[in-house]
């Protein structure tokens, strides 16, 4: 079943095109990492999908519901967390969760149970009766996630998580999201520029830049689309001569290969040529390698590519 589907989704703000003709499909149950640098359109995409913003062109459906015409029903099934949406400061953490659960039509006892589970999981149980305005930024982030999950949504939209400066808190957030998705089969759209976090839990990815969808799919599909290949990395003695198709990089010799199945023959060939091998390994492209195959690295000169219709 398709959880998210967009067709030529476009959003213009005056002359600026925030999202440009995005065609995206996400299967139910997937954890999709929506990656992109700042101003790539991740937040706009999230707001279009949840019906908070109307598209200029195209449309989108989430869980079979139109984001524009059925946004109220859609939001009833969604949990949304962004770094700009705060919890109610004058209420305690527990009060916040119970109130939002009630807004989604949950019964009191059920709401209490879920709220307690989430607060414990996110290490907020001891602070459950404290007013939210006394919370640190990290605690507020975790509470926002709890708020988005308390009513057991079928789809979770997350923008800006993780994004804190504390690795422990980020790990907790990721683990909670991942566990929730596994337990309930919910679909998660995680908009982030933290590639390591995305690689940890996401099953597929969508790469945005300047409002364009550069690539989408799982890591193997993205790797194939990026035309990056695995590298054979061979460490030999400093005086060893290597064949011409190897290049020296960071003290080791590298050669692109089609797959790790090529390694035995490659190593045999080197041994036949009397190359003394200290270490041989296969280096597969990471998400970061693949990401920067589609997106300009920070510091690289980038022409302003936003299309003006």
């Amino acid at each position, binding site marked *: 079943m398709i959880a998210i589907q967009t067709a030529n989704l476009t959003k213009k703000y005056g002359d600026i095109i925030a999202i440009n003709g995005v065609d995206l499909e996400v299967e139910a149950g997937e954890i999709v990492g929506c990656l992109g640098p700042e101003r790539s359109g991740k937040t706009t995409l999230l707001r279009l999908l949840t019906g908070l913003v109307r598209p200029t062109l195209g449309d989108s459906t989430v869980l079979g519901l139109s984001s524009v015409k059925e946004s109220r029903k859609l939001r009833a099934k969604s949990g949304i967390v962004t770094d700009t*949406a705060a919890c109610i400061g004058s209420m305690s953490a527990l009060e916040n969760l119970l109130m939002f659960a009630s807004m989604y039509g949950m019964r009191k006892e059920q709401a209490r149970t879920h709220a307690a589970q989430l607060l414990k999981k996110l290490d907020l149980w001891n602070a459950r009766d404290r007013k939210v305005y006394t919370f640190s930024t990290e605690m507020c982030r975790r509470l*926002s996630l709890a708020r988005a999950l308390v009513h057991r949504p079928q789809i979770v939209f997350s923008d800006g998580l993780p994004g804190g400066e504390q690795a422990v808190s980020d790990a907790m957030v990721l683990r909670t999201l991942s566990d929730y998705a596994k337990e309930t089969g919910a679909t998660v759209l995680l908009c982030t520029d933290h590639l390591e976090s995305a690689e940890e839990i996401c099953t597929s990815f969508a790469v945005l830049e300047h409002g364009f969808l550069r690539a989408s799919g799982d890591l193997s599909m993205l790797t194939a689309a990026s035309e990056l290949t695995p590298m054979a990395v061979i460490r030999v003695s400093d005086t060893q001569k290597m064949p011409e198709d190897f290049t020296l990089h960071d003290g080791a010799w590298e050669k692109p290969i089609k797959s790790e199945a090529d390694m035995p023959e490659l190593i045999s060939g080197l041994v036949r040529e009397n190359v003394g091998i200290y270490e041989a390994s296969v280096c597969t492209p990471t998400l970061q390698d693949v990401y920067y195959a589609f997106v300009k690295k920070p510091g690289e000169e980038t022409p302003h590519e936003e299309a003006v219709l």
Partner: protein
Amino acid sequence: MKKLFYKLFSKAERALMMKDLSALCRRRLILTLLIALPLVFAVAFPLLFLFVSAMVSPESSGVEQFKNLLDNIPQGTDERAQMFYIFTAFISPMLFMLIPLLSAIITASYTFAGERAHGTMETLLFAPFSVRRFLQVKAASSVLASGLVTAVSFILFFVATAIGDTVLKAPFFFDLSWFVLVFLLSPAITVLGVTFAAMLTVKARSTAESIQISGYIVLPILLIFIGQIMGLYRLNSIALLVLTAIIVGIDLCLFNFGFRRFTAEKLLTRPPEKPRKEKTNVY
């Protein structure tokens, strides 16, 4: 009443209203303002005027001049009673109308602009409400809060003025005009104040700014009553009923159609910062 309330608002909507009402009570400044309004306009002013009326000299030319402006002053009562009657019949209605209007502006400004300033507007827009219904429910919360303040104010005003009428042997103030004022015009003005303040939310970046902008609606209401004080006309019960009907018509338009032009996008977009005036040194 409870059944009607449950019929009009779903569980989710009632949760939102309870949150708004409890937020108003937790905010000390707002609560102080809402308590101060009835104390000043419904208690302090009547008692002050009672004191002034009791101290006024019958030979004072000021009293005669005032009486000459107005007709229908009841005969057979002394100057002090007539003075107090002038206050309850001509001046108090204007002061009393400020209570629902100002309390509506204060509560609606906090409920709408305050929500955006605290970053919680977006959070609440994630909930399963249509934008129009969301705004209507929040407006209803403000109307309830303001209605409560007005009701308490009237009780206090009634007691303070009844004491004045008894002490000075003035005619009892509560007549048909006051009935229309309290039970028909006040609720209509409350809704007007709330919807007006809510619609100006998009321009305000804070509660204080919203109160400032919304305060302009006080002027036309004041002008209507100032005409009466100057003796230009008398707002009798018929005139007040007509005024109520006009305001109810405006309320219905604003409440049902005014909120339609709002989208989540507009509510989430912060208005631009005002350019700061640069200080220039004057030599």
